[in-house]
């Protein structure tokens, strides 16, 4: 087993998965509940311990104020961006948020930033992989929506760092899917990947040629997905209950969650059935009953799924291709199971889409393929290379608040651009630069990535300084900036202040925080291990009591053992692992003579002319021994 095994992770809006390359094909690693999908839900239990995945789902309805889902929608975003989201999602923001600060979500009375919540999901996946391999995992390839901007990508990388994972590469989800598809089919041609997930939509058009996966164009919407369908149905249900039953449940977290579960179930059922029933128990003993037909459902969701049309057309236009020139269409994301979505794709590309890949798993499988390539490759991935693009144009603000685009969208990454600046007044020491991402003409309509100052320009007359600034987008789609004053050759100091991101120091402190809770995890593990050990020693004692050696103990010795046994049984159910250990040690000490006697009887049996093999070793030294230390992983 390679010590630096790299896993592939799909950190999804609704579900997350971890996969790795087993021999020549990628496989998903299941969790301890046997499920391949870890729901992207995080909750705090009554002891303020984080609970992740399926275990956290019940908290959504039982203690909604202590649970959060779809956190991906908040990654790399500011307070102003999420106002619309907050109408539909039961997220509770910290009250003391300052404008420009990274969001913090309240779970119970604690607050967490989105990267910290994502980190908890990543850590769960890391643990699943570690349990599967029986070895530590510290490196990963993590997927992100292709249309994620710099801040959203940086947040995802931060989440990895907080979780103790080195994120070797961020891969765009549709591109990852194409890797899994290409590995499978080994065919050349033009492929379109239509990825409609829980919260995001991406369309990517790729050229596959002899192992090169070259993205030609990508487009999307980072706030469009199954969640929007759910929210629409929830809104209708809440209107219904208000209108028909006179119940205003909008502020009732538990009821909203119950309705949410019901509409999701109905949505899924409608992909295979002509109609579905909603039946939700409401507070006050009332019920919400409604039947929804597929025809009604399709009419309702039409405006939502129509929002994928614009990005698809734009991607085709950017690629300079007509729909007929697309050879294959790959569907990714749970929402592509909806027949109406499939019909739309068929209409857009004049072709039947591929449906033989599991749309929930294909991204994680592709991430595992990319992890394998980064790790040096194997026979299956030989010659495979991904050439991805930046989804959004990079620009800088120039006079008049206009965006001057310096790296255009759909440029293959890594990509760079060099700009020259000078000073406006004599002796000017600083030049301020505002970096933007987006397609709009005006800076105010683009996304602010960072503002920074070129500092320490040597004193010169106005216009003499010549500062060269290099902007480089790396293979993760993340921007790096460096600058040099060319006349003096002086390297300028650059402080890139992310507009919506965590600073290095903040991330650093969060890693420490998670170490603290690692301490907590450690404590819990210790309790479990001590209990297991106690169970083993008690079982061994039971066996010892049935052995002939037991009869050779004095009544006093037996009494002492019984007392210690009782003490261990009493303390075993408590959370104090040190107390359990103490009781185990005491019992170990107290049963030393019993152990010796058992050993003696085994040996004497052997001496009576039998070989060790034939001797009845049943209750002898090979059986669990009160003195023997139990072994744990």
């Amino acid at each position, binding site marked *: 087993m390679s010590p630096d095994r790299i896993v592939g992770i799909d950190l999804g809006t609704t579900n997350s998965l971890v996969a790795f390359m087993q021999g020549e094909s990628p496989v998903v690693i299941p969790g301890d509940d046997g499920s391949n999908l870890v729901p992207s839900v995080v909750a705090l239990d009554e002891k303020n311990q984080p609970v992740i995945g399926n275990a956290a789902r019940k908290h959504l309805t039982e203690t909604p104020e202590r649970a959060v889902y779809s956190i991906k929608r908040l990654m790399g975003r500011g307070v102003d961006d999420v106002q619309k989201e907050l109408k539909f999602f039961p997220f509770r923001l910290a009250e003391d948020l300052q404008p420009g600060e990274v969001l913090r979500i309240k779970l119970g009375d604690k607050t967490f930033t989105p990267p910290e919540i994502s980190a908890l999901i990543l850590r769960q996946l890391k643990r699943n992989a570690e349990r599967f391999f029986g070895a530590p995992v510290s490196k990963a390839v993590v997927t992100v929506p292709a249309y994620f901007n710099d801040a959203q990508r940086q947040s995802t990388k931060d989440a990895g760092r907080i979780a103790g994972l080195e994120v*070797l*590469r961020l891969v765009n989800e549709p591109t990852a899917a194409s890797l899994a598809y290409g590995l499978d089919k080994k065919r050349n041609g033009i492929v379109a990947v239509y990825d409609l997930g829980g919260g995001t939509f991406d369309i990517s058009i790729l050229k596959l*040629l*002899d192992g*090169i996966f070259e993205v030609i164009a990508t487009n999307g919407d980072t706030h469009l997905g199954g969640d929007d369908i759910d929210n629409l149905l929830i809104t209708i249900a809440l209107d219904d209950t208000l209108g028909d039953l006179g119940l205003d449940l909008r502020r009732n977290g538990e009821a909203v969650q119950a309705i949410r579960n019901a509409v999701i179930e109905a949505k899924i059922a409608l992909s295979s059935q002509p109609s579905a029933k909603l039946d939700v128990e409401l507070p006050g003993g009332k019920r919400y009953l409604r039947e929804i037909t597929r025809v009604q459902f399709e009419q309702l969701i039409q405006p939502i799924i129509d929002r994928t049309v614009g990005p698809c057309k734009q991607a085709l236009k950017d690629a300079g291709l007509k729909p007929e020139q697309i050879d294959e269409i790959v569907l990714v994301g749970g929402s592509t199971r909806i027949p109406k979505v499939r019909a739309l794709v068929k209409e857009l590309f004049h072709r039947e889409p591929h449906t033989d890949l599991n749309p929930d798993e294909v991204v994680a499988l592709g991430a595992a393929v*990319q992890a394998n*390539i*980064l*790790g*040096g490759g194997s026979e299956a991935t030989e*010659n495979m*290379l*991904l*050439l991805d693009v930046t989804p959004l144009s990079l620009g800088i603000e120039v*006079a*008049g608040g206009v965006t001057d685009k310096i790296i255009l969208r759909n*440029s*293959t*990454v*890594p*990509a*760079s*651009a060099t700009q020259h600046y000078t000073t406006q007044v004599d002796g000017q020491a600083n030049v301020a630069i505002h970096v933007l991402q987006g397609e709009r003409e005006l800076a105010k309509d683009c996304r602010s990535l960072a503002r920074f100052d070129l500092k320490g320009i040597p004193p010169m007359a106005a216009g003499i300084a010549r500062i060269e600034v290099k902007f*480089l*987008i*790396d*293979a993760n789609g993340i921007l790096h900036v460096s600058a040099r004053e060319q006349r003096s050759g002086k390297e300028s100091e650059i402080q890139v202040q992310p507009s919506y991101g965590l600073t290095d120091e903040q991330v650093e402190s969060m890693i420490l925080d998670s170490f603290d809770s690692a301490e907590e995890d450690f404590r819990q593990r210790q309790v479990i291990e001590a209990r297991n050990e106690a169970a083993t020693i008690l079982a061994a004692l039971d066996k010892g009591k049935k052995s002939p050696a037991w009869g050779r103990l004095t009544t006093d010795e037996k009494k002492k053992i019984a007392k210690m046994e009782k003490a261990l049984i009493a303390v075993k159910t408590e959370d104090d692992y040190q107390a359990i250990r103490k009781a185990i040690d005491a019992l170990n000490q107290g049963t030393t003579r019993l152990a010796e006697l058992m050993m003696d009887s085994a040996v004497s049996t052997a001496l009576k002319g039998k070989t060790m093999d034939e001797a009845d070793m049943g209750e002898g030294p090979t059986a669990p021994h009160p003195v023997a230390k139990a072994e744990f992983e």
Partner: protein
Amino acid sequence: MRAVHFCEACGKVQPPAPVDYFTFFGLPRKLNLDVAALEKDFYELSRKLHPDLNARAGSQEQEWSLQQSSLLNDAYRALKNPIKRTQYLLKLEGVELEEQSKSATEQARSSGQLKKQIVPPDLLEEVFELNMQLEELRMQKKMGEDDPALIEEIGRQKLELEEKQEALLRELQDRWDMWDGMIQREQNGQPISEEERRQERDKMVDLLNRRNYIRNLVRDVNEVLEA
């Protein structure tokens, strides 16, 4: 000669040499270019320089791989597209196309006037009429009306403009032959006068400006039609 990107002996990525895009691919500074061969070269170099394939190398090599790979992508992007290639070559020849456009923008802004587009004289009449029609259609759309005859007329003119754009590209390609011939003569040891060089350059700058003008016009037409 192509610039050295990786060690011939050990295959390790080398720091990028400060070269122009033509030299990066080992190409002469000519404008006619075999794009298929360029693509093949691009893929081949990507297989050696891309960060994904150097992920296990030392940090210095990874840094060089990132620099080299971005230079490769930048160079490929500039050279594969005929217009960008011409613009890039003209820039190497000292023509500041962008600067011209920028300073015009700034001038216009400081004087509070709209940026003055140099209308090619032979288009003057047509453009004037088209702008009138576009304005009329904008007004109609605002009122919620559509005049099919007007839309058809504008659509017809758009097609004409697109044809002109194509024609300009062909004309530009003819200039490429002139330019490449000149470079070839120079390589053969024949001195080229500064005047001849400047004339060839200016002709291409003029064609690019005209094409740019028409492209913007087509964009405006599309905006109004799709509104």
